[in-house]
């Protein structure tokens, strides 16, 4: 939380050229996200018809990824030109990795690009991995020989590098992210409307005093003053009245909240020229959403209850802060105040005072958490801004890949999805059918160019016997086989966009990445995310 009360004098010449170029994305992931992107080093291991990986890179080069390397054994053939935009006639016969790299780096002079191999017949993935500076993230496009896939996953495990697989065939695709252990995200960017936390049922003394002071002679306020009481003050006043007439209790049940809402509405002055008051209307509208007891969402509960398989993981700043916030919650029965105040009808000065009451409480809570952090071994060096961000976003923190250690049993997922489909068949078009058949049909060709529907079904049957007899699985296998292992440019462009979004989320640690597989159906134009 930058200290917003301190304002730097205006700059006369506006933003830098780089800020202007990246303006539309800086509004999403800010300078911190941009810095993470610019220091990232990406490896793409390309194969097959070779488009989906290159489309992904395009969407990373444009926002200014630091460096990328393409490893690809292929030389450019005519059929590459019909599906891959980053090649042309002059590329024919060249190494595909080199030709694509050259067309990609044109897009952004700030990005470095490299390729492997440097000459025909010198492709050596193992050598590339051992001689290159560490990669931030590895993406490989299927189909790829099993030994190469293994090599890449070994590298990812050893270097705790996130690794993604992508496969695009005909109208179908999927991609899968494998993260090194549990991946916590603090800066999840929740929708603004859900972040408001007014603490109306757990107010602190400064807030109570402020509201009391404004409403002590509420009936004698003139219409202008009455019509500019902030909704927070109105609701705190009305809640105080409610408590007095309800034995100190708060309206927490639905029926009570409805009754309370009516009392707020009844307190509105209607004998003025407008025939009502906007601030009271705002207060009435806020009752159901904001008159609530402090609680913590399941996702944060999961963080609090998380048991580390490797005690060394608990030493990271995230887990130390999480421990301190957990202590805070145990002690106070609520989370640190996030400190934001939405706009509401009020006089400027009154609103700013109220805003500062929330901000000051947030700062105070951060100080308390920071003190606990400092007392935990390893917490001495943690930056206070990291603690601030954690406290501000506490309710929206997500753990991705929290079950990373537990292997998923495909046959169980198949059973679950087939059962869901039976329900969906009754529910009608509102409930879409599972896209799991697409994933399984594509994985049947993970290491070979293409296969017959029979071959695909046979391969699926080995993983999940039930699937082999399902008609949808058969049709999906036919559809995959139909493409003959080729990509459709549009499908690879959609998929490359989604993979790039995921890579940006993982690299910047902002927004929430998938956990862990996304399947795209280009016939029905929809996705499904499953843990596989």
């Amino acid at each position, binding site marked *: 939380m930058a200290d917003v009360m301190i304002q730097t004098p*205006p700059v006369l010449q506006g933003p830098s050229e780089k800020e202007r170029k990246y303006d539309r994305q800086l509004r*999403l992931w800010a300078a911190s996200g941009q810095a993470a992107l610019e220091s990232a080093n990406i490896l793409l291991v390309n194969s097959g018809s070779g488009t989906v990986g290159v489309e992904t890179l395009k969407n990373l080069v444009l926002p200014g990824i630091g460096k990328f390397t393409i490893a690809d054994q292929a030389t450019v053939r005519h059929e590459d030109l019909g599906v891959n935009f980053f090649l042309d006639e002059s590329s024919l016969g060249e190494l595909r990795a080199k030709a694509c790299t050259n067309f990609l780096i044109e897009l952004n*002079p700030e990005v470095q690009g490299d390729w492997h191999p440097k000459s025909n017949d010198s492709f050596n993935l193992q050598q590339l991995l051992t001689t290159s500076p560490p990669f931030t993230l590895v993406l490989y496009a299927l189909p790829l020989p099993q030994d190469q896939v293994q090599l890449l996953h070994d590298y990812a495990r050893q270097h705790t590098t996130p690794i993604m697989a992508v496969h695009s065939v005909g109208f179908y695709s999927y991609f899968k992210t494998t993260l090194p252990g549990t991946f916590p995200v603090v800066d999840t960017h929740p929708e603004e409307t859900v972040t408001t936390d007014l603490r109306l049922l757990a107010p602190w003394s400064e807030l109570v005093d402020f509201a009391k002071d404004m409403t002590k002679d509420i009936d004698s306020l003139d219409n202008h003053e009455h019509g500019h009481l902030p909704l927070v003050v109105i609701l705190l006043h009305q809640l105080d009245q409610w408590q007095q007439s309800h034995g100190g209790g708060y309206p927490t049940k639905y029926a009570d909240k409805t009754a309370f809402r009516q009392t707020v509405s009844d307190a509105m002055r209607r004998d003025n020229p407008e025939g009502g008051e906007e601030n009271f209307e705002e207060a009435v509208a806020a009752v159901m959403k904001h008159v609530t007891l402090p609680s913590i969402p399941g996702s944060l509960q999961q963080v609090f209850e998380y048991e580390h398989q490797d005690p060394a993981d608990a030493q990271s700043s995230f887990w130390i802060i999480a421990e301190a916030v957990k202590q805070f919650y145990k002690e106070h029965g609520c989370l640190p105040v996030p400190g934001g105040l939405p706009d509401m009808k009020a006089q400027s000065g009154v609103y700013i005072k109220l805003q500062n009451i929330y901000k000051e409480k947030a700062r105070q809570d951060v100080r308390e958490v920071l003190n606990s952090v400092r007392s935990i071994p390893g917490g001495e060096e943690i930056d206070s801004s990291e603690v601030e961000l954690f406290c501000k976003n506490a309710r929206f923190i997500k753990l991705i890949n929290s079950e990373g250690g537990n292997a998923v049993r495909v046959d169980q997922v198949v059973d679950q999805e087939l059962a869901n489909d039976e329900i969906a068949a009754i529910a009608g078009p509102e409930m879409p059918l599972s896209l799991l058949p697409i994933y399984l049909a594509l994985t049947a060709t993970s290491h070979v160019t293409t296969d017959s529907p029979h071959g695909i079904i046979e391969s699926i049957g080995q993983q999940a016997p039930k699937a082999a007899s399902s008609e949808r699985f058969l049709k999906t296998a036919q559809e995959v086989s139909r493409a003959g292992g080729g990509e459709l*440019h549009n499908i690879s*462009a959609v998929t490359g966009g989604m993979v790039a*979004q995921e890579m940006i989320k993982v690299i910047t640690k902002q927004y929430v990445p998938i956990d862990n597989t996304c399947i795209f159906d280009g016939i*029905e134009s929809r996705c499904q995310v499953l843990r596989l």
Partner: protein
Amino acid sequence: MKGRGLAPGGIKVTHSPAKVGAEAPKFLVGRQLRHTEKQPHLHLDLTETAYDAPSPVQQCTDPPQLLLQSCSSNITSLLQHAKRHPIPRILNPTARFWKMSVETQVAADAGVGSQDARWKYLDHIRRNAGPFTDPGATEDEFLAQFEKFKILGAGGLGCEILKNLAMSHFKNIHVIDMDTIDISNLNRQFLFRKADVGKFKAEVAAEFVQKRVEGVSITAHNNRIQDFDEEFYKQFQLVVCGLDSIEARRWINAMLVSIAEEAEDPDAIKPLIDGGTEGFKGQARVIFPSITSCIECQLDMHAPRAAVPLCTIASIPRQPEHCVEWAHIIAWEQEKPFPQLDKDDPEHVTWLYQKALTRAQEFSIPGVTYSLTQGTIKNIIPAIASTNAIIAAACCNEAFKIATTSAPCLGFENNYMMYSGNDSIYTYTFKHEKKDDCPVCGRQARPLEVDPKATLQELVDSLALRPEAQLKKPSIRAEGKTLYMQFPPSLEQQTRPNLGKTLIELGLENGQQVVVTDPAFPLEFNFFFKFKADS
């Protein structure tokens, strides 16, 4: 922008793609014929077809010259056959719109052999029916028809759309964009470089894609979509739009619905595929004008952002945006530091920023920055390459499916895909229902809920904000009575006194029909009053 002095049709950028000439199409048609002869029951036994599909390796090893010789003489008979036997369409209802006459000469193609090898993957999908494919999709005549498709792309997703259409093997593409390239486009509009800043987007993009993808012809129009008339739009079979304003979307929608409704011919139904993005989110939708839910039917899904009351801006600011709006609306008008506000001129934005900052300091309001100032006055929507890629390609995938019927498209059942990548990945693909009281494609007047004691001015103002209307410069007529006209000035002056009167005073009644027009749209909006009960 009409003032640019461009004739309708604009600047035409055409790099003749013809390297070899007219033999290429013969070759294509010939191959398809042979393919059919080999599999006469292709459409009756889909499972078989899929199992027996020739492998891509087989196809690309066919010596092209030989094929060319063996098939060229079949063209005439093929065309005659096509005329006698219209292609039946069963699975995919879209196909019935593509009864394009087969008589027209197929467009010239470039580099016969290499062209065939180039489109190996795409042709493989098109020639081999899948389990969901329309049975006619792999027929020769139908494959040939695709060659003549003329398709229109427009808007902020233009770069992606052009690339994707060219890579879908559409050969005749037009693109409309009046904008010039700004430095802030370079983070996502990937056909533009720093040296292109200031040039016309349509022209640079068209030239780039034409150079990269051999055999495609792209015509650039540096215009607004509103600069063209019906005749212009009638020449296309499909329109793919990634426009950045709701107004432009409504305009093209109204145009295509009107073309569809006026003609008897199904060829007049030009599917409109529309995409839009914001941050990590976006949507893609398919409209069959006059048949399925149109953009106007869906208007309330894009409700305008609630405006800040002027009194807040003028006297009780609380947010940094209120200070920026004060600088923008009030301080600028009072001081006029430059003759005309240019929101892209850093000097102008800096002036507003300083004014806003001073005001913010006066009220102790935190958070005014240059970036916020610019974002507020320009209503900047965050945009990134990856989201644009997803949405544009989803749109072009629909265009490809509609034109080739190689797989079922969105449109008649589900017609709308919402995408969000903020929190994991989530898509919602659903059917938006057509509205009977849609002012563009419906037949009925739409209820307009009003307080009879409200003034006409209040009604006029409310039309801009109502999610279902969103009309900024409305003129209103009731049966036999002109209530308020924005144009011409004489009529405006004459009807202005009505603005101060209440609906009752104007003698208007509950249930009465009113017609609203707005210069932004080439149509009339029919409403009837629904008076609010006394509150």
